[in-house]
């Protein structure tokens, strides 16, 4: 469903990612793990159009989307939960969700919103509260819920576990796993490699901007070298 081939890019003269190829299928959860600064966020930003690629191709349903500006990629069914959540702090939870449905307002927005509240009941209780007043975990739920409001077919999440308590990480990742089982293609970027690989079907390991390993997640979790490098064992 989402195919990235030979992606290269970075910030100005500094190349961060080199010849990366990644793919995600429908109803598949794929984890992209690697240490800080490996290029995970840069890849996601390039896929969603927040920054340009210097080489390579991005295809959604077989159609190239690399030339489209970010907002048109959202229209094609690609949603990105960016690093640091980026919720709209002074706006209410409901207004944040409504903005998530910015491009398809004609669809039943309140029905989609109720589905998000079913997924994250904590948000329903805070629906009128300013997003900035929520806890870190609730903000992450809101960021994911807001992305779901665009009814995406491909969902990309950038470090949803960052700065969250372990039990909240489980809650959020369980929900992400559920979304994949329901048919969404999900690309999950995580430093928390164990947690990500446990719910993922496949995984890529990225080091200094290059894919160094690609396998099903069971195999990656058993890999000695990987355990030593990323799993802290």
């Amino acid at each position: 469903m989402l195919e990235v081939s030979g992606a290269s890019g970075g910030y100005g003269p500094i190349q961060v990612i080199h010849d990366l190829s990644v793919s995600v299928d429908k109803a598949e959860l794929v984890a992209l793990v690697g240490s800080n600064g490996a290029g995970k966020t840069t890849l996601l930003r390039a896929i969603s159009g927040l920054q340009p690629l210097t080489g390579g191709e991005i295809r959604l349903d077989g159609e190239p989307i690399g030339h489209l500006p970010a907002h048109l990629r959202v229209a094609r069914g690609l949603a990105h939960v960016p690093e640091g959540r980026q919720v709209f702090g002074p706006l209410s939870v409901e207004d944040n969700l409504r903005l998530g449905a910015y491009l398809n307002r004609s669809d039943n927005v309140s029905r989609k919103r109720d589905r998000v509240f079913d997924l994250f009941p904590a948000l329903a209780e805070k629906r009128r509260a300013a997003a900035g007043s929520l806890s870190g975990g609730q903000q992450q739920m809101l960021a994911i819920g807001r992305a779901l409001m665009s009814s995406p077919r491909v969902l990309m999440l950038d470090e949803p576990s960052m700065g969250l308590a372990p039990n909240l990480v489980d809650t959020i990742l369980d929900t992400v796993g559920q979304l994949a089982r329901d048919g969404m293609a999900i690309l999950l970027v995580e430093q928390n490699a164990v947690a990500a690989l446990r719910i993922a079907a496949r995984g890529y390991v990225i080091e200094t901007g290059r894919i160094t390993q690609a396998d099903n997640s069971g195999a990656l979790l058993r890999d000695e070298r990987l355990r030593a490098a990323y799993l802290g064992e």
Partner: protein
Amino acid sequence: MPHRLSDRHLSVLALAGVVIALGWILPNAYFLRIATLVWIFALATLGLTVLIGQAGQVSLGQAGFLGVGAYAAAILPTRYGLPPLATPFVGAFVSGALAFLVGRPILRLKGHYLAIATLGLGFLISLVLTNEVGWTGGPDGMQVPRPVVFGVSLSQPSTWYWISAASLLIGAWLVLNLDGTTTGRAFRALRDSEVGASVMGIDVSRMKLRAFVLAAVYASVAGSLLGLSNGFVTPDQSSFLQSVELVTMSVLGGAHSVVGAILGSAMLVLLPQVLTVMQDYETLVLGAIVVVVMIFLPSGLVPALVDLTKRLTR
């Protein structure tokens, strides 16, 4: 949301009440002229309420558009025989088109860089108005012909009081209505997180451009009204200082508040009049008041007052 709807209408009604009451109470032409200036500058500042307060983009060149509007009122009737009352519309169109053309490249910039670029734009407009003597009368300014309606020349201060007040009410009503709309939410999303807005599918550059054009149109209409009501325009109205004053009005009253824009304008128009008793120290005291307000009420007068009443009624 119903409670917001009524808030909106209430604000406009309250404002209309104030406007009508003042129109009756104010004793003479001097006070009517001052009040007219308040309404006109409030209208220009309302554009900044959307641009700075809601969309989070700074413009230090807003007086440039004020100047375009003012000179539209002066140049179009004298050189092209346009009816004076049509000039605010033509001026608004010219300003909007100019903002659209220049905005595309300028609005790629952020923060300080955007501020400097808009400052440059303001300077350019000001320079043209000052130096194109054959067109604009140069630094001396230019006479603005009085509109004539049914054989009556519109020169009474009370006439311009009502015209500027009506323009302000319409302008305020439009901005208040923006609040609950998708466009209004998109503006605020832009201010809070450009990345967030972008991944929501909001065309960030287009929304910025929209806010910029809207602010230019507001400033331009205000400029035309200024020229028409004064009967005279000078390049000073497009100066950098005037731009700074408009931003100060917006921030002082509360950048994202419609009532704040009006209160901020009222302060900056009225204080110099009141402070004339201080003679040489007038500007000094005015500056000090602005500094003190910003130190103690950094979000502006109106948000601070709203907070206070909330705390008192709790």
